[in-house]
């Protein structure tokens, strides 16, 4: 049918334009990180890896990268733990106003990081806590716990309640059920929330900026580089951040979603 064919061509064109629109910025960023010249502007002059070399041999950048990893991993562990307990508690207990409590725990997802950063800044100031990697980590726990909660809560279905009930019925205690049944069953969403949490913490800027002092994370360091104007080295650093995010997501996809599909 010719109508079908025409429609299909239209859909393809739209898809290409849309993908272009969404991916062009990141594409340009990565492209000019290979720029063989001092400025990331047209025309593109032959590919070179020298800016990546410059990034990798910059000890301040590498230090900030290690800081970023430290903060991302440890804050994510805490956020997943807190989120899991909250999701489990809310899904399995007869608490009043369940819907309202769920909304309350999920709502922070839509609050601006800027607002949260401002609040944390004022709070730490008022409490006399000095800025450090710790304060950044706490900030990231605050933003990621609702995310982890939301992911895990959405996966705690009624079917799992029956399965836990069956475990109780066969003689398991509450703790045995949690440890032997619930946690293994929830492993895909536990891993998913961990990876997403690491990704979000890894490239978060505003909280890390407002709550850091001497030790900074990679996005903050990149921000610093921007002050001296556009430079392919900044592109290279940004591309590295992007690359590692993508790597984490692919890892998550392989570890988590393939497994879910198999079951």
């Amino acid at each position: 049918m010719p109508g079908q064919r025409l429609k299909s061509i239209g859909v393809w064109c739209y898809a290409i334009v849309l993908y272009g629109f969404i991916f062009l910025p990141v594409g340009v960023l990565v492209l000019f990180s290979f720029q063989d010249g001092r400025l990331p502007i047209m025309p593109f002059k032959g590919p070179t890896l020298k800016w990546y070399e410059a990034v990798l041999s910059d000890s301040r950048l590498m230090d900030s990268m290690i800081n970023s990893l430290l903060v991302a991993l440890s804050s994510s562990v805490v956020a997943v733990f807190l989120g899991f307990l909250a999701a489990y508690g809310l899904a399995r207990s007869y608490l009043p106003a369940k819907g309202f409590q769920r909304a309350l725990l999920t709502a922070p997802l839509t609050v601006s990081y800027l607002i949260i950063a401002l609040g944390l800044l004022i709070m730490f100031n008022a409490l006399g806590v000095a800025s450090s990697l710790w304060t950044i980590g706490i900030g990231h726990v605050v933003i990621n716990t609702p995310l982890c909660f939301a992911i895990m809560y959405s996966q705690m279905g009624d079917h799992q309640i029956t399965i836990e009930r069956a475990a109780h019925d066969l003689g398991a205690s509450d703790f045995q059920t949690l440890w032997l049944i619930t946690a293994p069953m929830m492993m895909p969403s536990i891993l998913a929330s961990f990876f997403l949490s690491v990704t979000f913490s890894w490239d978060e800027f505003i909280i890390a900026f407002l709550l850091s002092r001497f030790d900074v994370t990679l996005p903050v360091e990149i921000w610093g580089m921007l002050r001296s104007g556009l430079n392919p080295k900044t592109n290279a650093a940004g591309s590295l951040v992007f690359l590692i995010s993508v790597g984490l997501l692919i890892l998550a996809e392989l570890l988590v979603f393939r497994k879910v599909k198999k079951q």
Partner: protein
Amino acid sequence: MTATVEIQNLSHRFDDFTALSDINLTIDAGSFAVLLGPSGCGKTTLLSVLGGFISPTQGRVLLNGEDVTHVEPAKRATTTMFQDYALFPHMTLLANVGFGLRMRGQTRRARNDRAMEMLTLVGLESSANKKPHELSGGQRQRVALARALAVDPDVLLLDEPLGALDLKLRRQMQDELKAIQRRVGTTFIHVTHDQEEAMAIANDIVVMNAGHVEDTGSPESIYLSPKTLFSATFMGETNVLPGRVTTINEAQVMIDTSLGPVSTFRKSDVNGDIVVGDTVQVCFRPEHVHINHPATENLQSLGKATITDHAFFGSHQRCQLLAADNQHYTAHLPQTSPVPRDADVGLMVDRGSIVLLKKTR
């Protein structure tokens, strides 16, 4: 092991909804009992009370005479087989079936031996190392049965375990359940809304409706002499003809109906409390209706009727008859008997099979 189950004055309310009201019931040790009723009748709530998942607001549950009303599920000699099987998805079948024994502190070897034994009982010994997601629906159902029986419960509670299977597999699993119950001797209490399933497997049927028990007894007694109209209509189709009792003598009860006077045999055990003047429902099953049959002692005529609809149903033909009172009655006629469409026929009913029910409320 096996146990008698006694339920005494049991009631349960959810907020302001009465799910169970004043239930009294005894289920004999070793019997296969079925709780039968439409959805929302309270049968699943009753099963949850027996399993210990719900603490009833009133009344007691006794297992072998011991009060277990508020004993938690883990410490109660019952196990439940859930409707969706509730297998542990991350464990092998062997680990699934052995889980209850693991919680009872048995050694790995002892529990694996017992789990293999149970898997053999349900014919899945060769799949012991598979995970549940590799199984078909019927196989999952068998694993759930093996897991529940592995801890050797006194009473096994089955919550619509065959609801998710297709008709053919359901019939097969019914036969298997019945055979396994006979083998292990455990008391089985099975919940279903399917009256055919109930008849196929039960020794005792408990018909429930709106939170109370309507009728109890063997499949035969409930089908042939139901105690209430609900029970009569839920266990198969039935025709209902309202009337008023005019005479009762030694052998017969005479009723005035919209289709003229009807007489039936007096059965003191079933309708002993009916007295002259009572408003009653004259109930008779479609297979007890005959058309154009020569009059005999055992047949009661209900006047002339017209066949308005007719379909072939395999082992019988189903007809809708419009009788003199302008009501439709259903008849099941033999497979090959001729059905005169749109002509007047004589409507008769087996006198011995008529059930009289006193109209309540």
